[in-house]
């Protein structure tokens, strides 16, 4: 009884709704205060007791000290439950921030390192006439190789991937479950194993030479699961009513798939292809044993060793000379940019797709 009236008294006069789940000034000042305390404590401990171990260690210890201090003060001021609750909030925030750190440093580092070598020559010349100490020359051979190999890989894996996705979601055949499981398992195949496989079949067993085509075959094995899974998910989003409507109007199954389902899912399917390409562009390991790499331009993907951007970077970064390393970094920059552009395209098309559907 007494409790009840107390509650009423407490709530009646201040009739402003409390904003839920938001943090108050106290909470923020506590957070910032303990962060500062953590850093200063660490600075004392770190410099006095365990000197000369670098910045990263400092941040790690500072973070741990901050966490301990924060939980202790929260427990004293606000009670154990709140302390625990706040600890989780802080942990999830820091995990998300931690994830951003590698992304930003990777992009910045590659840009800073690679920008100096970015010029017209890089896109128009190859390295056949360039010594290891010379500047000049470029990655034209590598760029041509990458374009050709990825194009061929797309031509192989996209029809196959779409067919598999259609099998999984439109035909709904008897082996749907095992096929889906195998597609999943295939997406985890190490890229080097795909390369070894193509080497064993295409080059040893069938007696062909290193070529861009062999590289494209290996790349299409790696693209296939990506294309299939994404395409299948997109096809699943097409409402069944459209299929039934089409069939009820007398269309055959093939017409339904080709004229109704595919156009409805078109933008999503393009996203699937673009994501597959983004995966294939940066693959390095299978190319070592399929296209091998070369310094000279080879515009014929059917015959002879061919260079490609990842191989170009992988080969030159191991070189001790500054000019070669510079080229490798510029190659890495171009590679990252290509992946970023592809990724953005996939996002834009994908966003459009989901916008249309609503």
């Amino acid at each position, binding site marked *: 009884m007494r409790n009840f009236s107390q509650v009423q008294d407490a709530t009646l006069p201040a009739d402003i709704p409390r904003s839920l789940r938001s943090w108050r000034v106290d909470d923020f000042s506590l957070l910032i205060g303990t962060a500062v305390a953590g850093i200063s404590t660490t600075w004392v401990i770190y410099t006095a007791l*365990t000197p000369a*171990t*670098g*910045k*990263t260690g400092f941040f790690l210890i500072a973070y741990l000290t901050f966490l301990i201090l924060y939980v202790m003060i929260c427990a004293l001021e606000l009670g154990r*439950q709140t302390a625990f*609750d706040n*600890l*989780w*909030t802080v942990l*999830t*925030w*820091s*995990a*998300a921030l*931690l994830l*951003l750190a590698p992304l930003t*440093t*990777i992009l910045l580092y*590659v840009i800073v390192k690679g920008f100096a070598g970015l010029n017209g020559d890089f896109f128009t010349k190859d390295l056949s006439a360039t010594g290891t100490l010379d500047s000049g020359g470029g990655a034209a051979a590598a760029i041509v190789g990458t374009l050709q190999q990825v194009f061929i890989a797309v031509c192989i894996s996209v029809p*196959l991937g779409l*067919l*598999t996705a*259609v*099998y*999984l979601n*439109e*035909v709904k*055949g008897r*082996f749907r479950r095992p*096929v889906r*499981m*195998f597609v999943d*398992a*295939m997406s*985890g*195949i*190490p890229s*080097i*194993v795909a390369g*070894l*496989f193509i080497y*064993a*079949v295409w080059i040893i067993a069938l007696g062909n030479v290193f070529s861009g085509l062999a590289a494209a075959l290996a790349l299409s094995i790696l693209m*296939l*699961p990506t294309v299939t899974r994404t395409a299948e998910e997109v096809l699943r989003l097409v409402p069944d009513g459209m299929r039934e409507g089409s069939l009820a109007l007398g269309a*055959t*199954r093939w017409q339904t798939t080709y004229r109704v389902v595919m156009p409805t899912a078109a933008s999503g399917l393009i996203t699937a292809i673009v994501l597959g390409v*983004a*995966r294939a562009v*940066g*693959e*390095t*390991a299978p190319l070592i044993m399929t296209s091998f790499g070369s310094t000279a331009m080879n515009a014929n993907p059917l015959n002879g060793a061919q260079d490609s951007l*990842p191989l170009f*970077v*992988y080969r030159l970064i191991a070189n001790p000379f500054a000019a070669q390393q510079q080229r*490798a970094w510029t190659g890495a920059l171009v590679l990252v940019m290509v992946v*970023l552009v592809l*990724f953005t395209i996939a996002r834009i098309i994908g966003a459009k797709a989901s916008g249309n559907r609503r």
Partner: protein
Amino acid sequence: MQADEDKSLDRKDASSQDQPRTLERSLSTDDRVYEAAAVAGGLSTLVILAFIGLFLFVRSSLVFSQVGLGFFTSTSWRPDASPPEFGIVSILYWTVIIAIIALAIALPVSVLTALFLVEYSPRRLRGPLRTLVDLLAAIPSLIYGLWGLFFLQPHLVGVARWLSDYASFIPIFRVKEPTFTGSAFIVSVVLALMILPIITSIVREVLEQTPPGEKEAALALGSTRSGMVKSVMLPFARGGIIGGSMLGLGRALGETIAVAIILSPSLIISPRILETGTNSIASLIALKFGEADELSLSALMAAGLTLFVLTLTVNFIASFVVARSRSGAGVDA
């Protein structure tokens, strides 16, 4: 009533007089071709996987005929010795160790990030953050390797030295030689970053399917948000967390170029993860391929086969677990 009688009458009629017509699909030629093509496409995945296993097995027969099952018991990999020695044990050991350390680093971070994306983050941040996580997955392995070697390693060497100086009471942090570059620890940190997005997106997917009713019930009973996360969301997502981490483990086991760029190869089995020298099957293949003669090529094929079987097994278990938790099996509500 009337309707019921009609129905029962119908049923009686049907059972006494009519036989159910057997339904037949009559497909046009177009449709036959279409279905056959789709079936062929669907089965191509199975065929490719079977061929990969088969060809690697056939190509590795040479080394098995030379060293026999010693391939799986010996720790020495010396193509130049006479007779040449090929044993995968130490390489397999390091492959598994770096994958497990990578998972141990990545798992807590990705579960927390997934929780942040589903539960803790401001609504406006969710979309962009999800894109960033996907972008992290799209960055090529080669770039991770370069960044890890030139940018991250100098930073991590300090941490490794600090750990070996002040935390050496834990056996795995002990070192014999104070060299820290190219160690299992550094390789694992880079691997952890590479598998983070995969685990995060799977855990997030499963967390998003937590029944809102149960979450609200926990909060209504007076639970704090962390209490709700611990008692409702995490148990619900357990299958996704296990499956996602196994998928991540599969990736870490098979990752090639980033590892090959960073590590310094070693054939010594030791628990000292901070010290220079580690190994992995995938990077062994990438690094030794160029200088391989016929016998060692066959040994590399055998190593590839081992890796293939290992990753395939891990992935199968993973996709099985994830599929079960996605369909909501084992959930009462």
